[in-house]
């Protein structure tokens, strides 16, 4: 199995726990070296958060369980990078 090195997730979460708590706890999972969370939409009691995770060997089930434990829901997996190094998506003529 190839190792997942980057995950970009679109999530919906309640205001609490805050993204500070979530980022801090995600960064403590094994195989993760950095986490970035940004809020791009705020609703009455919930907010949409884009979560970017990078590491040597990210375990998606662990990430999914932690986000669920914090009351969040993963709406979509927007980007995944796996392998021995991180690559960006290649530019195409359509871009």
């Amino acid at each position, binding site marked *: 199995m190839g190792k997942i090195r980057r995950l970009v997730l679109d999530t*919906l979460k309640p205001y609490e*726990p805050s993204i500070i*708590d979530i980022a801090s706890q995600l960064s403590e999972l094994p195989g993760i070296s950095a986490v970035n969370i940004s809020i791009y939409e705020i609703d*009455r*009691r*919930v907010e949409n958060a884009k979560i970017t995770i990078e590491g040597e060997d990210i375990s998606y089930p662990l990430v999914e369980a932690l986000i669920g*434990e914090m009351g969040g*829901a993963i709406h979509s997996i927007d980007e995944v990078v796996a392998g021995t190094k991180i690559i960006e998506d290649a530019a195409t003529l359509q871009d």
Partner: protein
Amino acid sequence: MRWFEDLRQRIRAYDNLTNIGEIARRYFVMNAFDGVLTIIGVLMGNLTAGVERADIVISTGLATCIAMGVSGLWGAYLTEAAERKRDLTELGRQTLTDLNQSRIGRASRTAVVVVALVDGLAPFLAAVVVLIPFFAAGLFPVITWAYYAGLGMALLTLVGLGLFLGRISRGNLILSGVKTVLAGLVSMLIIFLVGA
């Protein structure tokens, strides 16, 4: 001491999620206040009725304390559980997840238990404090002194609650204490006039 630190962090996290501290504080003051005023009623009733046996005052007083404690515990548990459940379901509907097994769900259930305990124990303990002089009634030359001591304890408890409220609001402590004591004095006066 690691477990203690873990517990402290968990309590803080649950408090952030459910606001347990603020709600418990509010219930504590409101119900302790209720408890003291109710037991003032019991004492004044016994005094104006001319009850001279300490054991009768203690048994009627303790019965009232127990009823207030059970009422607080039960009532708060049922109402808080219903409100929290509704809130959790609504939040879960918005996040499209079942939050019962999440940290929010656990914090919510903890909040219900904490609030119910505070709601039950606050009036019970506040009222029991007022009855203390009757347990030592033998030390007083006449039972009336125990009544006065009990009512004095009630006023002191009210002052304590007032000071606590004053500290929370960061307002005038003396004024806050006077406001709560006044409630005790007014109820004593009314019962005295009605009893006379």
